[in-house]
């Protein structure tokens, strides 16, 4: 029996994953994942490598559509709508649910054009409006003061940490509802990592954020909720299988200080994974 977190049927969640399964071709990567993601809070996905954290994250804004052979079943409930219904346009989904990737990936364009990319896609082309959006977004990503004098410089000329904040600025420029972050700090040094965490707590405090991380301290410091995934290797009938499952979900303090299962406790203590 797959772990089921407790949730309130009457609460309006930012996004509600309900028995989500993801397949890559014939291979089932994750099974029956249920996670209630609360509005305006930070939810962290943790778990050993290969347990399907990225897979679930990418299922939330339909990035898996881009992978040939990938298939999602179950319900990803967003504002009363299943994102996988036939009449949902993935382009619209991604505009509302933005994403920041593990490796900073600014476009080979100027800082300004990187940030203005999203608004322009939506048909915002007036220079004064774009100027305003660019400044607001860069401030929102705590990058403005560092780059305000050379917005024409290539985004690739920035340091890794700055690049990642540029990617965040780019994402919030289209004013999404939810920001998905897949190990956004794993390629950065401790100071740049700290900047990102601070950013999440302060400038981005209005956003619903889901972050995948391997860093337990980071999860503990930065998140309000934690979803712990684990790899299942045998099912109830002792058949050999291999998929990711949600092993525990709850408020961060509770999961870290008082985990309900032994495997969670072991993982958090760093004894495996």
């Amino acid at each position, binding site marked *: 029996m797959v772990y089921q977190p407790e949730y309130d049927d009457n609460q309006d969640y930012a996004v509600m994953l309900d028995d989500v399964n993801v397949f890559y071709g014939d291979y089932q990567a994750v099974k029956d994942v249920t996670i209630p993601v609360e509005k305006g809070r930070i939810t962290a996905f943790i778990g050993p490598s290969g347990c399907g954290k990225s897979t679930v994250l990418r299922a939330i804004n339909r990035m898996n559509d881009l992978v040939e052979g990938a298939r999602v079943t179950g319900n990803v409930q967003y504002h009363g709508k299943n994102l996988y219904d036939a009449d949902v346009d993935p382009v619209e989904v991604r505009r509302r649910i*933005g994403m920041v990737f593990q490796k900073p990936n600014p476009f080979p364009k100027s800082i300004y054009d990187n940030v203005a990319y999203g608004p322009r896609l939506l048909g915002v082309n007036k220079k004064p409006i774009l100027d305003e959006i660019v400044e607001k977004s860069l401030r929102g990503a705590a990058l403005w003061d560092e780059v305000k004098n050379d917005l024409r410089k290539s985004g*690739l000329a920035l340091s890794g940490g700055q690049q990642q904040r540029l990617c965040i600025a780019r994402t919030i420029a289209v004013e999404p509802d939810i920001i998905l972050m897949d190990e956004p700090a794993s390629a950065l040094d401790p100071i740049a990592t700290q900047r990102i965490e601070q950013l999440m707590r302060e400038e981005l405090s209005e956003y619903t954020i889901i972050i995948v991380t391997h860093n337990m301290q980071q999860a503990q410091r930065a998140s309000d909720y934690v979803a712990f995934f684990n790899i299942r290797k045998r099912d109830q009938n002792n058949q050999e299988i291999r998929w990711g499952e949600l092993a525990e979900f709850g408020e961060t303090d509770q999961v870290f200080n008082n985990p309900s299962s032994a495997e969670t406790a072991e993982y958090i203590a760093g004894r495996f994974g």
Partner: protein
Amino acid sequence: MTMESHTPTSSYMPDEATFKKRLAGRHRRAGAWLGFYYFAIGISLVALIALFGNVINEAFGSIAVQFEVDPDTLTEDGADLNSLDETQLAQILVDQLGGRIVVLIRDELSAVASEDFTSATLAQLVPNGTLPDGYEDATVEEVRALDSEEAMPVWRDLIALNVPKDGLLNLINDQIVSLEVVGSWPLLEALFAYDAPSETVDRIATIPTEIAALASELEDLRSETGGIAQAETALADARRDQADDATITSLREAVREQQARATDIETQIDQLDEELETLEDSSIVTEVAANYPDARIIRFQSWLDTQFLTTQMSSTPYEAGIRGAILGSLWLMAVVIVFALPVGVATAIYLNEYATDNFLNRLIETNVRNLAGVPSIIYGMLGLAVFVRVLEPFTSGSIFGVADAANGRTVLSAALTLGLLILPIIIINAQEALRAVPNALREASYGMGATKWQTIWKIVLPSALPGILTGLILSVSRAIGETAPLIVVGASTLLFTDPNGPFSKFTALPIQIYNWTARPQDQFRDIAAAAIIVLLVIVIALNSVAIVLRNRYAR
């Protein structure tokens, strides 16, 4: 050495001695390979040098020219013709041609029909021109009737006032100097086998006289009254008179002697001929001295000059130019790019970004790759069948109302053929460039809520552009040198008008080169070499642009 003290402990590692021995072997093998690389580079270098050397050797070198009138004798102090003004040049024409100047005016200057020429007034001959004062209304006949003291200045002024300086120089060259190139020699000979010692030249001058003397002696000897005939008659007489054996023997001896003398002279002549030939071949100067005693040698003549680049085709090599061929090649290039770039890139985008992995798409992709290897002549045959024949109304421009339909053998047909030829290369290169765009960029764009088309247009294509352009330029530089398909599609080899649009007849540099190298006369090979240099310069320039593009954007 301290390294010796480090001994591996595990048993499968070689011991010290074995290690040293094997190390020496490893270095030896590396050295052998390095030697092979040097050898390979050497071969490439030699091949390149031979290629360029050969072309340059042909395109520059000595020529021998002959004139009817030496241009230096035309001016009093041997001044350069270019330094004279119009009146002086016209004066030269008048002086040299005399009465024939009227014919020249009729053929080169007059605007009236030749049957009306003599009765026309000078003002009618040059409707918008300037005229010698006082003779505006005189007819040609009237001027001609004047005595030459008076008439010649009128003709001179008429020409001087109405023909530009270049035209006058051309007239002098055509009508008076009549330069003719009688021989040409490659650069190596001009450098290293130009001159001969003066004895050799003198000797060459004397040999023909010696030969002539010997030949006339031989002729005498063999004539009806010559030595041989006399001796034979004496012998015949003696036989008839039944002279004694001794006499007959001595007379027979005399005949034999005379014949031997003739053979001897023949041998001498042969030897002299041979000597002359060897002396002749020893240098350019001697060769000219022997064959064209009146010719003048220009030791360093470049067949590649501005005149060659800017004048039209001609059937005399010295006057031929490649303007038409250069323009034709440029037109081809332009139309090829306009056609092949969008089609090629669109195909690559479809195959790379849209096509799912199914049988049909794999078939298309495999075929594109195979098409890149199809010999160009086959494209030429396709172009002939499809563009020249079936699509003639389109390629000749007649459905667009272009009047002078060239039977479909137009720039457009040829460009479409070459376009097809390089399309697979463009597609493959563009696919390569698209594949090199990191997926992270695509994901980033999709993650922002971009559609597929926006992602391709705004992110993927700009990133792939340098690679796409590099491929385009390289393939265009291949197309520009293609000859076979153009011949099949029907390029003109002797085109006297400039190609001026997609629907005109055309020629191209490789066609011109091919055509000239196939001619028997040496000088055509010289101008072919000059044209090859032009073609190589274009191709190398294109390739350099491609290299710069690639380096500039290589990240």
